[in-house]
């Protein structure tokens, strides 16, 4: 059933290092006086959306930005802790654009597109320059210059950070740039507005239907192009490190209108999160990967020691399993590897804590070596956060951690220009699938979101819009807008009309459990097939028995949630389909049937070196798989090794 039709990555010809330069110097432009006549809709005000909107506003386009949050500053990007990568080589430790490019491709287990990733590495340095110019208070050394730290999957120090609040500071920078454009009148901000559909006219994206979350009114908004920067879909698992409101609706609605969804099964499970404590749990809290710079992961060698106080277990009875298995990278192996290693020791019965689903992350050595002050300066706020949640003091007792869903590498398929398979519809940031392959390296999401928004999209969207200078304003009175609005309204009425007995939340929890058990850290054919059947049944039950209180014409968070969960259920099924189809293990996708004798992921480059892009074929129809073959012209593809 696979076809290669329609997928043109549009990576420019030429050597890898020249592609982006050539593209920029030859792309068609829109002259300043014409930009004023062009409307661009941006959905999302996280790092990707805010940076794109601010930059497009500065260029002179009319920009409309939508967010379901009460302020653009609340986007989930705010929660990123650890840092942002850039190939500045300020440490003189051998870093370069090529090395960042190479490590991103390798870290992604050879499932990302070379051209896009090289461009990302090329613009990474500009991001740091831009953010510093905005006043982002990155960490500094005594000489006043910028400081760096290391992150997993690399052997250089290229991560810039702002205490444990890097995402916050970067987002505030982008939010301030956006605020400046709002004040200048180039950007109109629509807070508390949730996009419910994209509208296609003559096959092109020409606007959206948004729901005003305060009044419940459906609004039509026209534009010459639409950018989705709506974030990731990790909350399909219910429990994740994502903020509670993160959802897939914008991307999923676009998918149903013709945008292919790529690699949905590539999910990143982050190795260091605070373990689940009870069934009332609403979300999981990440402990930044930067902790693995100085923290050592271990479990008891003997299962019978697991209930002992960790400080009573002598050195000789501890298994520092990452250092043992991966001597070259030790505790700094990439996330997918660290997560699976933790699962493996817990599956062997050597997990700790009340549930047995946790490993220790120990700072005793670091405190002895560096002193408590230094450890506190580096990680103070993370330690505090841990203590608030877990009620234990990590200076005295090792942290308990366990992997949790964190990031989604999959997303809307985009070409080199970040355009989806729908002309004029773009996807940026975590919402697209582009740069991280099957596994993302730490501190690279912030880099990618800002690269897309500040330095890529403003160029690429111009070449599309250069054909629209005579189009004139997009009318929202067309039959297409009318039909799309009616679809949204019908769906809302249908949900409100069910009047069943079960809460939206309870369905979401059940979906999450299916996904975590059968499409989580390890997957197999039988489990995935069962999951598909279970999700279909759950979805049918949802549309018969969910109860949404309140009315449609007021502020109604339950209704918002109901619409999002409905989309998660459709996505969950596609994730399982994709995981079933990919009969290999790579990066975050681990199929139990495909592993080496030592339990490492076993890729199958002959049959699966492609991005899987799924096409929506209609309600209750199988989606069609399209394959974008990945060609490696520069990097030599090899088995990933961190030993």
């Amino acid at each position, binding site marked *: 059933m696979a076809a290669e039709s329609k997928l043109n990555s549009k990576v420019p010809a030429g050597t890898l290092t020249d592609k982006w330069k050539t593209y920029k110097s030859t792309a068609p432009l829109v002259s300043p006086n014409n930009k004023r006549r062009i409307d661009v809709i941006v959905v999302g005000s996280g790092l990707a959306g805010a940076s794109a909107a601010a*930059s497009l506003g*500065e260029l002179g386009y009319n920009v409309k930005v939508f967010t379901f*949050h*009460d*302020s653009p*500053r*609340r986007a*989930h990007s*705010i*929660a990123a802790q650890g840092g942002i990568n850039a190939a500045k080589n*300020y440490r003189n430790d051998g870093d370069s654009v090529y090395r960042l490019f190479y490590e991103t491709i390798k870290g992604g287990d050879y499932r990302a597109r070379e051209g896009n990733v090289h461009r990302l590495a090329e613009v990474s340095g*500009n991001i*740091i*320059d*831009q*953010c*510093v*110019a*905005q*006043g982002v*208070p*990155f960490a*500094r050394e005594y000489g*006043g*210059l*910028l400081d760096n730290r290391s992150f997993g999957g690399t052997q250089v120090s290229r991560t810039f950070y702002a205490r444990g*609040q890097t*995402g*916050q*500071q970067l987002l505030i920078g982008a939010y*301030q*740039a956006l605020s*400046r454009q709002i004040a200048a009148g180039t950007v109109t*901000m629509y*807070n508390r507005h949730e996009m419910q559909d994209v509208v296609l006219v003559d096959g092109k994206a020409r606007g959206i239907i948004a729901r005003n979350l*305060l009044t419940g009114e459906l609004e039509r908004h026209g534009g010459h192009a639409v950018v989705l920067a709506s974030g990731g879909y990790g909350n399909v698992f219910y429990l994740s490190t994502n*903020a*509670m*409101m993160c959802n897939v609706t914008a991307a999923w609605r676009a998918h149903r209108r013709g945008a292919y969804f790529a690699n949905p099964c590539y999910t990143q499970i982050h190795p260091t999160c605070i373990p689940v*404590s*009870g069934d*009332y*749990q*609403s*979300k999981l*809290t990440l402990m930044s990967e930067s902790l693995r710079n100085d923290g050592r992961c271990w479990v008891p060698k003997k299962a019978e020691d697991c209930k002992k106080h960790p400080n009573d277990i002598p050195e000789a009875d501890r298994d520092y399993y990452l250092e043992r298995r991966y001597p070259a990278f030790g505790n700094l192996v990439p996330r997918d590897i660290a997560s699976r290693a933790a699962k493996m020791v817990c599956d062997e019965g050597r997990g700790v804590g009340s549930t047995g689903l946790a490993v220790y992350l120990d700072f005793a050595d670091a405190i002895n070596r560096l002193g408590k002050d230094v450890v506190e300066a580096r990680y103070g706020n993370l330690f505090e*956060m841990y203590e*608030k*949640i877990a*009620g234990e003091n990590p200076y005295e007792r090792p942290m308990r951690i366990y992997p949790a869903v964190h990031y989604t590498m999959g997303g809307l398929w985009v070409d080199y220009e970040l355009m989806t398979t729908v002309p004029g519809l773009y996807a940026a940031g975590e919402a697209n699938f582009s740069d991280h392959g099957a596994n993302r390296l730490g501190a690279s999401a912030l880099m990618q979101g800002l690269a897309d928004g500040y330095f890529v999209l*403003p160029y690429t969207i111009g070449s599309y819009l250069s054909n629209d200078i005579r189009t004139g304003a997009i009318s929202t009175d067309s039959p297409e807008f009318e039909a799309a609005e009616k679809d949204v309204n019908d769906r809302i009425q249908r949900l409100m009309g069910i009047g069943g007995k079960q*809460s939206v*939340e*309870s369905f979401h929890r059940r979906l999450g459990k299916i996904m975590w058990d059968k499409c989580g850290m390890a997957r197999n054919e039988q489990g995935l097939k069962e999951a598909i059947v279970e999700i279909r049944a759950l979805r049918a039950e949802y549309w018969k028995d969910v109860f949404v*209180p*309140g009315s449609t014409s*007021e*502020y109604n*968070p*339950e209704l918002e949630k109901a619409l999002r969960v409905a989309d998660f259920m459709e996505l969950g099924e596609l994730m399982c389909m994709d995981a079933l189809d990919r009969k290999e293990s790579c990066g975050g996708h681990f199929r139990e049937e495909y592993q080496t004798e030592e339990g490492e992921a076993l890729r199958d480059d002959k049959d699966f070196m492609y991005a899987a892009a799924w096409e929506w074929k209609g309600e209750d129809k199988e989606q069609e798989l399209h394959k974008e073959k990945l060609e490696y012209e520069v990097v030599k593809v090899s088995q990933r090794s961190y030993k």
Partner: protein
Amino acid sequence: MKLTLKIWRQGGKYKGEFVTYQLNDVNEHMSFLEMLDVLNEQLVHQREEPVAFEHDCREGICGTCSLVIDGRAHGPMKGTTTCQVHMRHYKDGDTIVIEPFRARAFPVIKDLVVDRSSFDRIIQSGGYVSVNTGQAQDANNIPIGKDVAGKSFDAAACIGCGACVAACPNASAMLFTSAKISHLALLPQGQVERKQRVLDMVAQMDLEGFGKCSNVTACEAECPKEISVENIARMNREYMAASFTAEKV
């Protein structure tokens, strides 16, 4: 543990009143908001409208959660947002009173949800450095002393939650506004627009209907990010200096 909750309800069938609820099975490891989730599940099961409250990250960084808990913005603990309060700080039989952040410039939308968009407009009035994408020089061309950078960071850590306003008897937004003024005034990047920024932001703050500061310092006490009132003093100095010397060109 068993708890009694007295919650402010406003909108729909409620005119603006406290409604009392009982919860019988609260686990001490739950977060405060998870406790409210349990209440809302219970209400949905009784086909009642759940209590509207705002939240998102649930880890103390997005600034979305609010709530005045037993008279204190963000609850009983110092340096903590509502979403980070855990039930282990309460005991069986407690009664907890929950209200929205109240201020003229923060109108109530529903129940515990208020409109804080006035904060956005304060930032829009000047809380930025005017640099377009692509105009930046190399980052290390601007060395900044570690302590200056640290001070600026302390102010930049504000999450825009509005607890300072809710805690202030005058509903003043001085702490929030001064945090942004300080963040940028301390950095070399913020110098060019320094004077105009403080004049414009203070003007916008007044326009939004926030009250005057009378040095109560309840804002600092309740601020979850422990933003210091020193920032207010700095803003006042900046404002005085700018009023005398700024030139509109």
